Structures are given as structure tokens and as C-alpha cells.
């Protein structure tokens, strides 16, 4: 089975570049140049140095003793929560801003849901001295005030998306419209493995440092680069893409994606796209999409703003369809309990997105020798309000 992208920009039945003609030159420029630029020695040096000295990579792979004892397996935590700005998102924004510079772009735009990608973009724009506009749903701006202020402190203009339901999906629409209106001087830093080709592949490559490090670290710590399981949460799917990337052709490594079930799969308030979605086209690619019979995109729900997206990246849609990745899900309550559990067993308060990945430990059966890696995609600082409101600790 082939899991990688083909020359037309498809992963099996999914992917492609479904964009209005006005965006064609931008997408074509990116498509024709991203691999060459990313392959340049000078680019790689600069990227790797920033990851090391600015982001703080490699992030630790931590053997979680107490969690391992509880679940009778060898559980490792990949500590992306220790990246600068508090999540894996910055791996991608560093890569894309270096690429934007080489394309001669002067301005950066981005979309954000919970604000993590927005903060990571605002951060690299400050670092590189570039103008930055971040679109954020008006509702999300109210829910995530601290991240709005972080972006503003960093010198970014945060523009509320007031169309539709005023969340991540609408912020993405607004960012695309901005790009249509400003095609020549602006680069759009998409934050997940979604959007028209080459974005899903480009973002996955920038995030692939996660699985590259896991392999090296497991070789050192376990004497074997291959875990038995890699577990990661999936909204759009960027942290999962990074954690799966270098294992996808090693079929003996079981890859587990965890979606947000919200209030429950059948509650009407969920974001579990592989269960509830059908193939469709949104934001420039063909993928699995939560939608009505008539093809209108459905507003998803999750307690975690980062998983609150009605689709998944086209690569994940393909990995789901081929059965290469097994998709599980966790409800709001299961995730919140798992967040508390990780806090109390290992002293790590995870982002609520990450807590979904931790929650499936209860739903799986392991052999005592199994090596399990959970990608701790982000830290819980931004979610303190949600933990407090949930209250059961």
C-alpha cells in the first residue's frame, strides 16, 4: 500500500487543490518550489538551528513510570508541550516563514481556532520582523482571550471572523479571502495538514521532526527505534501527521488517531469526522467532512477548540480509509478526566486536545512489553479556564 502523496497532490482518493482561479498562481508557485526550497542546505541549516536554539528541540521523550504501571505497558510521552509557545504548532510556522522569505513575501496571514497556531505564527513573525494578520472567529476570540492578547503583544493584528458561526472554519474562510485579495505580497501560513496541495504535505514534512526524534530517542532508550503504538489526537491532524510520519511504512507500528467525540458520537455535538463525515471538498482539498445530506458543512463541537474542526487532513482521510491508522475517539468528559489523570500521575497538565489522546489508554489492551508513545502535543496553560469550569478535580 502506498501512503505517500502522488505527483498530482492526492493521497489515494483525497487531497488535490480545489481552489478558485484567483489563488492558482500562489498555490502553483508554492507547489513548484516547496520541495526544492526545503531541500536546500541553507534552508535546512537555518530551520534546524531555529528548532534547536529557539523552539528548544529535541523535545524530551519521557518514560512515564506511574502511567506505565497503571496501564501495564511501557508508556513514553513525547513532550511537544515543552516547545516554545507551548505546542508543536511552532515547528510548522518556523518552516513556513523561512519558506515565505525565500518566496519574497513581505506579509503573513494565518487562521487560528484556540489561538495556538495564531500565537506560533505571531511569534515567528516577530522573530523575522514581518507583518502579520491572524483571523480568528469572533466567538473563539471571546473564549480564548489570553491568546488574543499574546498575539497582540507580539505585534500581530487579530481580525475577528464574523461570518458563519464565527469559529475556526470561518476564520479559515476569511484568511483565504484575504489571500485572494492580496495574492502577490502575502504568504498564508496554514496551521494544520489541511488546505490545497501542497499544504498538507508541506505541513506534515515540517512536523515530521516529531517522529524523527521519537525514532532516535527510542533507539537510545529502548535499543529499538520502533514503538508498538503511537497515539496522537486529531483535529485537522498536524501533530498526528508529525508523530506518524516516519512510521507510516513500518506496518508493525500501530498508529492510533484520537478524535473528539464531544458530548458523544450520536449527540449532535461532536467533532469525530471519521465516524460522522463523508467525502467532500472544503478549504481546498477533498477529504472526509462533516456535512448535511445537501453538502452544507456542519459546525462541529468539542470542549477542545483545537479539535473543533469539521474535517481532517486528506492524508488522515486516506490513512483511515486504508486502515493504516486506527481512529478512536474520546468524549469531553473522558478527555477532562484523562487530563487530570496525567497531571496527577506524571505532573504534566496537558492541553485538552492532548488529553483526548491520553483518554484512549483506558480503551486499549496492551502487553506488558508494548512500547507506547503518546504525543503530548501541547500544554494545558491555555486551558486553565476550561479545567476550572469543568471543576471535577
Amino acid at each position: 500500500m502506498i501512503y505517500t502523496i502522488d505527483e498530482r497532490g492526492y493521497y489515494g482518493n483525497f487531497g488535490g487543490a480545489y481552489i478558485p482561479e484567483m489563488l492558482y498562481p500562489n498555490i502553483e508557485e508554492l507547489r513548484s518550489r516547496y520541495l526544492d526550497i526545503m531541500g536546500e542546505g541553507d534552508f535546512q541549516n537555518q530551520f534546524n538551528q531555529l528548532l534547536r536554539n529557539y523552539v528548544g528541540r529535541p523535545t524530551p521523550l519521557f518514560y512515564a513510570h506511574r502511567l506505565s504501571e497503571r496501564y501495564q505497558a511501557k508508556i513514553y510521552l513525547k513532550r511537544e508541550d515543552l516547545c516554545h509557545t507551548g505546542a508543536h504548532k511552532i515547528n510548522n510556522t518556523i518552516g513556513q516563514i523561512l519558506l515565505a522569505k525565500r518566496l519574497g513575501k513581505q506579509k503573513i496571514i494565518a487562521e487560528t481556532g484556540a489561538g495556538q497556531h495564531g500565537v506560533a505564527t505571531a511569534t515567528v513573525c516577530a522573530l523575522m520582523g514581518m507583518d502579520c494578520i491572524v483571523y480568528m472567529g469572533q466567538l473563539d476570540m471571546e473564549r480564548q482571550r489570553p491568546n488574543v492578547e499574546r498575539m497582540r503583544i507580539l505585534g500581530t493584528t487579530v481580525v475577528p471572523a464574523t461570518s458563519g458561526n464565527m469559529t475556526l472554519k470561518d476564520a479559515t474562510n476569511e484568511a483565504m479571502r484575504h489571500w485572494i485579495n492580496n495574492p502577490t505580497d502575502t504568504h498564508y501560513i496554514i496551521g494544520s495538514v489541511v488546505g490545497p496541495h501542497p499544504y498538507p504535505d508541506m505541513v506534515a514534512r515540517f512536523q515530521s521532526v516529531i517522529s524523527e526524534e521519537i525514532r532516535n530517542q527510542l533507539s537510545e532508550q529502548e535499543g529499538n527505534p520502533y514503538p508498538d503504538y503511537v497515539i496522537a489526537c486529531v483535529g485537522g491532524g498536524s501533530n498526528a501527521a508529525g508523530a506518524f510520519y516516519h512510521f507510516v511504512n513500518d506496518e508493525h507500528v500501530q498508529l492510533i488517531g484520537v478524535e473528539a467525540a464531544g458530548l458523544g458520537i450520536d449527540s449532535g455535538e461532536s467533532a469525530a469526522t471519521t465516524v460522522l463525515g463523508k467525502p467532500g471538498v472544503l478549504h481546498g482539498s477533498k477529504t472526509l467532512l462533516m456535512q448535511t445530506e445537501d453538502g452544507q458543512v456542519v459546525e462541529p463541537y468539542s470542549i477542545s477548540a483545537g479539535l473543533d474542526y469539521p474535517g481532517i487532513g486528506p492524508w488522515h482521510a486516506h490513512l483511515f480509509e486504508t486502515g493504516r491508522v486506527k481512529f478512536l475517539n474520546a468524549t469531553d468528559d473522558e478527555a477532562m478526566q484523562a487530563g487530570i489523570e496525567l497531571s496527577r500521575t506524571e505532573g504534566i497538565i496537558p492541553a485538552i486536545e492532548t488529553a483526548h489522546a491520553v483518554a484512549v489508554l483506558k480503551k486499549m489492551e496492551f502487553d506488558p512489553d508494548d512500547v507506547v508513545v503518546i504525543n503530548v502535543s501541547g500544554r494545558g496553560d491555555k486551558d486553565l479556564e476550561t479545567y476550572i469550569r469543568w471543576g471535577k478535580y
Partner: protein
Amino acid sequence: METINVMNRIDKLFQQKKENILSVFFTAGFPTLHDTVEIAKQLQSAGVDMIEIGIPFSDPIADGPVIQQSSKQAIDNGMTVTLLLEQVKEIRKTVSVPIILMGYLNPVMQYGMDRFFSDAVAAGVDGLILPDMPFEEFESHYKQEMDRLDLRNIFLISPTTSDDRIERIDQASRGFIYAVSSSSTTGSKNEFDENQIRYFKRLKDKQLKNPFLIGFGISNKETFSAACQNGAGAIVGSAFIKVLSASKSIPNDILTFIKTLNSGIK
């Protein structure tokens, strides 16, 4: 099947009229669910040459705020692809100008592409504009079936479209080409600047095999007349939706609006 062996209405229009063509866009199911039929009739009575009806979509990335808002309201009103095709059948009882359906790919894909093509033709549709359908996708998957049904697919080009690509699009097109006036979403601008005029001239000088209509930012008699001097005519969308939004008497307001637009030419 009366559509067989009858000339496509778009082709016929461009054969009979070479200039000052006015095509008007409005969103199906807006302002109220069943206004679609009446608006189409009134547009023909007012002398419009072609009608474009928008299939509302929840995430219209190429549209500005005015059309977005109308789409949202239409969806809230209960508009669906199935209902729109029924409305087009009703429109065709009295309306003879070409009808184009314009919409994003996803609702059409859920209806079923081939099923949509044949049901649209049966209802009396002459052409489609699907702005997020890639040109390459059309050529490899849909061109053959649409040609067989004599259904036109209208492509967009913009000021940033390269010469090569314009020529390829021209070669693959039948009917006309939709020249987006600026790098923008719909309804963004009020007058043309030097760059836009230069772009229209560039298109004119190319001597394309298809005529082109200018759209996006045609809002008043000045921009309509400027578009007519540079292309075969123009497409008016957001400005018309604004009229509908504010209208107390749709027939009167349509007549006045179209009269005003046309008053700048001839």
C-alpha cells in the same frame, strides 16, 4: 428531450449579441425561499441577457460579505440543490434567456456530479460556474459528460492568470470566459483602476476564441459601461443582492436597477 439538437442558449446569445451583454447573479432562495422564480422572471422582463443563479454554500471562499450573507440566509430559509432544480423548471415555463448555475463543488458533489449535470440540463440550465473545481479535474473527469449534454462549463480568469493558462482555458472553454476584474472576492471594489484597464486590454488583444464577460466589482452604470467598452459585457452580483436585501417591492426595484445600469451605454 427538446434540448437535443437545439442550440445551447449561451451560444445563441453570443452569436446574436456581441456587446453590452448584461448578466445578473442572484442567490437562490433569497431573500425568501420561493423568490427565485419571481426574480428570474422580472430580470428577463427588465431586459437582462443572461441569468446566473447561485447555489448557496456554507463556506463560499470566493465571495465577499454581501453574497456570503445571502447564502447563509438562503440556507437558513431551507434552500437545497433539489429545490433549486425544481425552481429552474418553473422558471423555464416563461423565461428563455440562458440560465447558469453557479456554486461551490461540495453541494454538487453530494448531489452526484453526473446526476446533477443531467438533471440541470433537463431543468433547462445552459451552463455551470464551479469556482473551486480545478481546470485539470474538469478536463479529466467531467468535460466529456458535460459536452455530451451540451452543458457549458464557464471558467474564471483573473489578473494574475498567466498568458499560457489563459490560452489553455480559452481552448477548453465553450460559451464565454468569466474575467474576474481584480484579484479579489466578489463585490470588493467600486471603480476600475489603471491596472484593471490594462488587464482588460491585454485580454482583448489576445483575440481569444471565446468572448469574455467582466465580473466582480460591477456595481453601477459607470463600471458596467466601462466593462462593456472592454469586454462583451458584464456580470453584476453583489450590487444586485444589495438591491434585493433592501427591497420593499422586488419587481419595481429590479426594473429601476437594470434601467439605471443600462443607462450608461448606447
